[in-house]
């Protein structure tokens, strides 16, 4: 039996992708808190996209005759120390938080995916260098590393996105490397190689689909933490700069008025907390739906 025939004999049948996807969706929907999480997340995405339409006031417009106004019919969440409408700023802040969460995790997934694939495929010295580099990133506390990188890259959303992207890269690199190591010894990969498939084709056709599930699970669980991290950096003054609104910077600006106007802090605080809780529910449901073995 020549190599190609043997490879065909042992090649595993392609899984029924559609059945698997529907099964995953059904399992995810069955999780009790997932619908609540999904509804909140959907609402947050709509708010972020439609911020100019939904925001009752200009988030930057100051009204010095109406500072620290209590929540009421005119200003649902009150006004801040320079008379800006807190609700409008919370609505615009949703955009910053969601962009920070999703984009930084996307950067990490892309960078980690490429590095993990390189390490897993190349093996040897390249594997050693990449993985030690990832260990070095992991040997710094995430917030401290993000703070240092943010300081170097400069305050602003781009710096924060890149800093958080670097912080979350090792988790994805390790996952991808593990998947590559496990997939590259399978018979169907050997078959593809025997048939003359290029490394890139094998990576795209066999490794990526197999690695997609753990990567999606890791990404869905990371977004909530990325949003918290962005809020923390903004709170410290490294995120998007005033007067633009982000939940973290609003909370920091309001802490001096905690006694007279707690709503300045608790409006964005509630938005942040509810979004993170919702993302956790959605992340858990995606994990349970896609890979029940990982259930905690």
């Amino acid at each position: 039996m020549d190599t190609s025939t043997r490879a065909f004999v042992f090649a595993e049948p392609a899984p029924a992708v559609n059945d698997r996807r529907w099964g995953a969706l059904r399992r995810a929907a069955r999780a009790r808190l997932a619908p609540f999480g999904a509804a909140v997340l959907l609402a947050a995405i709509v708010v972020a996209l439609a911020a100019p339409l939904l925001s009752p006031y200009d988030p930057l417009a100051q009204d010095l005759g109406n500072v620290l106004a209590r929540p009421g019919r005119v200003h649902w969440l009150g006004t801040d120390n320079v008379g800006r409408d807190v609700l409008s700023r919370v609505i615009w802040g949703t955009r910053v938080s969601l962009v920070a969460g999703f984009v930084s995790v996307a950067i990490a997934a892309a960078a980690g995916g490429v590095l993990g694939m390189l390490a897993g495929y190349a093996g040897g010295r390249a594997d050693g260098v990449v993985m030690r580099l990832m260990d070095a990133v992991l040997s710094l506390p995430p917030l401290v590393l993000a703070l240092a990188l943010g300081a170097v890259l400069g305050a602003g959303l781009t710096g924060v996105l890149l800093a958080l992207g670097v912080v979350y890269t090792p988790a994805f690199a390790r996952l991808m490397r593990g998947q590559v190591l496990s997939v590259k010894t399978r018979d169907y990969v050997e078959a593809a190689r025997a048939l003359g498939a290029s490394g890139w084709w094998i990576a795209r056709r066999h490794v990526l689909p197999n690695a997609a599930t753990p990567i999606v699970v890791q990404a869905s669980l990371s977004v909530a933490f990325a949003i918290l991290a962005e809020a923390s950096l903004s709170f410290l003054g490294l995120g998007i700069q005033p007067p633009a609104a982000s939940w973290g910077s609003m909370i920091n600006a309001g802490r001096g008025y905690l006694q007279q106007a707690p709503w300045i802090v608790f409006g964005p605080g509630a938005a942040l907390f509810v979004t993170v809780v919702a993302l956790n529910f959605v992340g858990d449901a995606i994990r349970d739906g896609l890979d029940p073995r990982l259930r905690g």
Partner: protein
Amino acid sequence: MAEVVLRRLLATVPVLLLVTAGVFALLHLTPGDPVDAMMAESADASTKESLRRELGLDRPIAVQYAAWMGRLLRGDLGRSIRNGEPVLENVSRRIRPSLQLALLAMAIALTIAFPVAIASAVRHNTGVDRLGTTFALFGICMPNFLLALLLIFVFGVTLRWLPISGYLDPLEEGWSGLRSLILPAVTLGLALAAVITRTLRSSLLEALAEDYVRTARAKGLSEWVVIRGHVLKNALIPVVTVLGLQLGTLIGGAVITEYVFALPGVGRLVVDAVFARDYPLVQGVILLIALGFIVSNLLVDLLYGYIDPRIRLR
């Protein structure tokens, strides 16, 4: 055992080298001239030139790295630009509040997490369990700075029971010193308690389903003896793992907590140095934090062998 320690120590050498390279690169990643970034625009050219020379920025980058590593190996982490003092002196002055905060937070976390997790696991799927898991979820999703402000609002501003900022050393000032650390330690401790509760609860549930637990119960042992003698020790390994993994979060949380409560600790030092663009101080403190983090993780690894002899024998 000595061989395991040696092997782990050797494995940290390349990681440490890469960390030093990364920390060194921090200064050079700064867009534009780092000296311009560090000094005010008004500073005259000769002052800037002397700082450039002092930092060695006028030499080739490889030479700069070699010289910097040479100084590091002699224990010289550089000097702060702001106060001109060595980095080590800056850190040693700030380390005491940070350690006190971390220890108190850890004590609070363990005091809350163990009873809550045990109650949750023993009364699995009841109201008690739901209360425990809700607490864990709350603690994990609540950002440190928001919890800190909530606690300040309730216990500092509204009830006026506890001070909302500042620091007095408990070892010198006694009770009033301890009072100044209660709110920061609760802020930091609750988040950690939530993570430990979640992990301990699920590992306790796993251990409770084991055959040896059924045997212990069949022998007529009381539930408490079963939990303490058989279940708890077996459920500890994941908790130690999580504690090791959470050290980074604890340090990050300490940075925020010290910032909110104006505690003069190492976390606050990092934030101040970052905003003052005092890069030698940022480099030195981050290197020390990384070193502390690596050593703590090493200790956690070695603790496994102590808790579970099966790991030691492997």
